[in-house]
């Protein structure tokens, strides 16, 4: 319940283009974007997150990835990995 509200709030914030929730196998379970974009994002970002996470943990196993930001010219992709899932939010930071 509370999470749904939080997600709604995030979606309604300025500049947010979409939210995707992906499970640990890389399959999107909830999205606000269209299907093809979702699948594309989920597949590509999943690999990136795995790589980033293993990088952080290889350096120190007690450490863990909190979030990952990929800033590009047009927008910013923010990824917050959780234990079994990860959230992706695409935002246009400054209009």
């Amino acid at each position, binding site marked *: 319940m509370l999470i749904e509200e939080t997600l709604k709030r*995030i979606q309604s914030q300025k*500049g947010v283009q979409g939210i995707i929730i992906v499970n640990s196998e890389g399959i999107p*379970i909830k999205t606000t974007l269209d299907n093809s974009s979702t699948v594309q994002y989920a597949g590509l970002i999943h690999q990136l997150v795995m790589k980033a996470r*293993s990088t952080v943990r290889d350096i120190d*196993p007690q450490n863990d990835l909190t979030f990952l*930001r990929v800033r590009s010219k047009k927008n910013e992709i923010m990824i917050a*990995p959780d234990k079994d*899932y990860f959230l992706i939010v695409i935002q246009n930071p*400054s209009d």
Partner: protein
Amino acid sequence: MPVSNNNVVASVRKGSIAQKAPGAKSNKTSSKKKDEEEGVDTGDGWDEWSHGKALTKPPDQLELTEEELKTELTRILTANNPHAPQNIVRYSFKERSYKPTSVVDQMAVHFVLDGSLLHQDSDEARRLRAKEVDTGTEPEEEKPETPATPVEDGGEVGEAGEEDRPDSVASKTDKKEPKITNQFNFSERASQTLNNPLRERSCQTEPPPRSIFSATANQWEIYDAYAEELQKQEKSKEKQKAVPSKKDNDISKKKMMLTETQSDDIGKVDKASKIFERMVNQNIFDDIAQDFKYFEDASDEFRDQEGTLLPLWKFQYDKAKRLSVAALCWNKKYQDLFAVGMGSYDFSKQGCGMLVFYSLKNSAFPEYIYPTSSGILCLDIHEQHSYLVAVGFYDGCVAVYNLKEEGVEPVYKSTAKTGKHTDPVWQVRWQNDDMDNNHNFYSVSSDGRVVSWTLVKNELVFTDIIRLSLNGAVSEGPEGAQQPSIACGTSFDFHKQIDYLFLVGTEEGKIHKCSKTYSSQYLETYDAHSMAVDAVKWNHFHPKVFISCSSDWTVKIWDHTIKTVKNNTLILLITDFFQVHVFDLNINKYEAICQQPVVAKKKTKLTHIEFNPIYPIIIVGDDRGYVTSLKLSPNLRKKPKSKKGQEMPKGPEVEVAKMEKLLSLLREPEQSTV
């Protein structure tokens, strides 16, 4: 002569018959010729029918003269093989030349037949006879029958039969002679057996279910596995310890667990979503975050000791729009968290209130929300246990909220039975844990009581500390019907170092210095103001100084040893309803070094203000439910400039020194005047 020739010819002819046919052919041809000659010459019996014909000569007859016809040719009959070669030549290595072999084999085989006759006395014949005897009576019977047929044969057979009988008798006795295999004339015997037809039989099964499994073994995966194991072990230890009492709990927990796993999957991303909200907010308000951290107003160098306040985030909550901010408090442990108590100052409009916690990291939505039934007037966050929040309400109740607990109800709440105030509670303050390690806090209210509340297990236990009265001293006890009129306490503050000492400000404008231990008497009373004292506060650093502010638009600084006013240090004022005035008493006693409108004029009024102990920002609350955060520009935070080469003493000593200096400046003229 021709007859003799004839005879000779006839003998030759006869002899020629003995020879082989091919050999005879040439003779025959020659004899033919001779015959024809005879036919010509003689006319004997053979020639009888040649008489009928005229003498015919074959066209290719040899023409011989008569002399030649009369010559006699001798012919010799030999046993030579006409086909045997007569001129075989062999190479002789001895003489190194070819030499004719003199002797040549002259045998010509005309016919060969392999027979199966055995000599009756030979071994084989005997064996065969022995065998025959076995199958025996019938052939014996047959044998006597066979003489009935041809006589010659019968006689022979009869003899043979007779001979056989004694032999057969003998063979019967020798029946059991071992078989001897024929080693010389071996014949292989084989027989082909029937090949059974082949039939293939198979059955197909369902392939076992397969799943592809792949994993990586990294250092951190191994670490994770160990950590899980450790947790499991610890849990099992706990379970062993608490098995009997917690069985029911476990069952209920199991049920809970089941429902949780079956229910919505999204529930697991709550942490991530929280982080996300902050990230998104950071992005949106990126410039503000940057300003908060790094912005220093450069123009302060040009403004002589004047400063500015830079507005940063603005916090608001939809449901609290109608409420005004009545209390603000920073959290000591988490310096980005602050509490906002909402209620209403308006006597006539009293409704519900709200306790809201914001974090600087997320300005769009509060972290914690607690709706209350009555407006909140004051709150305080415990210094050590920053999850405990004491709240005083307009209806006189006090409550304690525990942020760690889920649920919107306070953990403790005072009721009419448990000694709640009868008038609004204006101030609450946490105190150090008492001797039993129970948390306790104080509250002051317009009903004239200063009450100490102790959190004992699940209850709030109250103790009246002092009863304020209009007279100089409170006299309890039945002195007639004259009850001391009760003063209304509006604020109080506890001394930072001296634990039992505290100040109470009243609505009548007096400030009383009291002690926790003496409940009936004030230690001292100051005639502070003409109107209600809104706030008193001890100086954090100087042990003797406190400040009081009042509705009569004045702020006074006191040294509690002397009953007069002093001025000092940096203070902050909210006046004019929408502006923030900053005074630095070190610099200028009577003018603000910063005046800044914070909210729009005429619409909103500022009600409360708080410093952040760590960051150079202040939060200002207004009567619309907004909280605005402002950053102090460098001028406002300035510490006295150090002379070159001198070390800067930092911290409390500086403040104390500053205070002392000012006090000394002020005291002297006063003393001089006095």
